């Protein structure tokens, strides 16, 4: 049964050194505040899973939290490289980084298989693609009915899933809408979970009948962090900060500039610093 607590307590009680952790959110609702808390608590030797590592994994990799990365697209969308990821892969700074690389289709299917309790995901993929030559976790399987050769990858079943959602209610149920990515699958596939939310309401009230809702008995820790997805966004609350995504390129390009930024904006700050990015749904619409 989910429990509402502070973000610091949620991370301390849920994530251990060496865990396999998936912080998900496909462009929308990326759990930045939770990632920063993991950095502040100096978690180490994590295997991080994420389809699009985005700036949050650039930050966690640059701060030395990560031993291995499982991913499918490691760039700054529309801008260019993730420089801390590249520095780790190309120069082993601040430590060497093991990578396991897939396609989006493979990872989306693997999350779904994890949520469905299956050992592997099967799909039509990787035809003629070199990833199948360098990743031993990509195999072929023959359909027993048609004989078609299909791709198989292991299911994703992380120790911990971390997501940012729009709302929780007092009973600890969680609601998200908009671009919902693979967050439902990630939480259902994981052994434990942390959900940060924009707001906690008494009751969800009238809502879309098909809104994505994670019942309280499927969720672990819940922490309210207003603005906790910035510089990504929360539909109806605040927009994606595209200017920051562009600015990150220069910040992350250089090790010293990166460390200075992380010290001032992460190490010396707390989750409450995100509130400045949050606006009420009504103000955001104006």
């Amino acid at each position: 049964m989910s429990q509402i607590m502070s973000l610091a307590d949620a991370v301390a009680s849920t994530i251990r050194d060496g865990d396999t952790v998936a912080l998900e959110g496909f462009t929308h609702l990326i759990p930045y505040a939770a990632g920063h808390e993991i950095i502040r608590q100096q978690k180490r030797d994590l295997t991080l899973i994420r389809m699009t590592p985005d700036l949050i994994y650039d930050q966690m990799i640059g701060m030395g939290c990560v031993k291995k990365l499982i991913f499918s697209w490691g760039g700054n969308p529309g801008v260019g490289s993730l420089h801390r990821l590249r520095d780790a892969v190309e120069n082993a700074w601040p430590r060497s980084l093991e990578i396991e690389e897939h396609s989006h289709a493979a990872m989306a299917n693997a999350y779904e298989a994890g949520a469905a309790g299956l050992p592997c995901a099967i799909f039509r993929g990787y035809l003629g693609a070199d990833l199948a030559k360098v990743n031993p976790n990509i195999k072929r399987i023959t359909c027993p009915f048609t004989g078609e050769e299909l791709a198989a990858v292991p299911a994703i079943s992380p120790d911990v899933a971390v997501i940012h959602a729009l709302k929780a209610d007092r009973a600890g149920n969680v609601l998200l809408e908009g671009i919902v990515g693979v967050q439902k699958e990630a939480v259902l596939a994981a052994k434990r979970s942390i959900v940060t939310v924009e707001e906690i309401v008494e009751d969800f009230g009238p809502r879309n009948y098909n809104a994505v809702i994670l019942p309280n008995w499927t969720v672990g820790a819940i922490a309210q962090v207003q603005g906790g997805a910035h510089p990504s966004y929360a539909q109806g609350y605040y927009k994606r900060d595209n200017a920051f995504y562009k600015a990150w390129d220069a910040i992350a390009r250089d090790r010293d500039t990166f460390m200075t930024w992380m010290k001032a904006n992460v190490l010396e700050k707390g989750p409450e610093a995100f509130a400045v990015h949050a606006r009420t749904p009504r103000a955001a619409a104006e």
Partner: protein
Amino acid sequence: MTQSYKPAEMMTVAAARALRNEDVCFVGIGAPSAACNLARLTHAPDITLIYESGTIGTKPNVLPLSIGDGELCETALTTVSVPEMFRYWLQGGRITVGFLGGAQIDKYANLNTTVVGPYDKPKVRLPGGGGAPEIATSCGEIFIIMAQSKRSFVDKLDFVTSLGHGLEGDARAKLGVKTKGPTRLITDLCIFEPDPQTKEMTVVSIHPGVTREQIQENTGWPVKFAATVAETPAPNAQELAVLRELHARTNKAHSEAA
């Protein structure tokens, strides 16, 4: 009288013209996104644009910086989860055209967006494949948009991120792939289409003012030209106006803090 325009504008306009009003198009970020939305705002108002974040039938007023900006969801007919997008819509064979870009391409239109140098010890680590490996084989056909240079148009790829025509005319068929693969490559200099037999990308149309020598100088293999090579019509006033307004709106939106 024709207006003056930049090679990048010619490229985007030529790419947009390749799309049809009835297409269902899986849109890559960057140059493909500009071309697809230009098509929607000019000759193909009913085109269905799909972004891998799950947005179907989206009509953004400004170009998204990422494949999942809120603008895409707010203007979409509907938004589905990412597993559903890749399983039901892409793998399910419901997409007529996939529009891709890349860091490197070879003469069979195989694409590399993964590494320069060896995979285990890369000289340059690129972002990787994302949706491209399955877009390349699941969409009915593939259009590619890329500015031409010797660095990006190479004789041999360090890594095949997504399949074009392999290394021979029947490579796709041998792998059991039933879709057409790259049928058009639009650059800032010209338009390539695959040779019907060998599938080698062949120049079929040259943009105004561009020479065959220029195309060769910016290509890392000996370029084949079709028996008849057309001149690409220059961008017209409407195409240029709509494209420039779209970029102006986009630049303004992306420079504002959220």
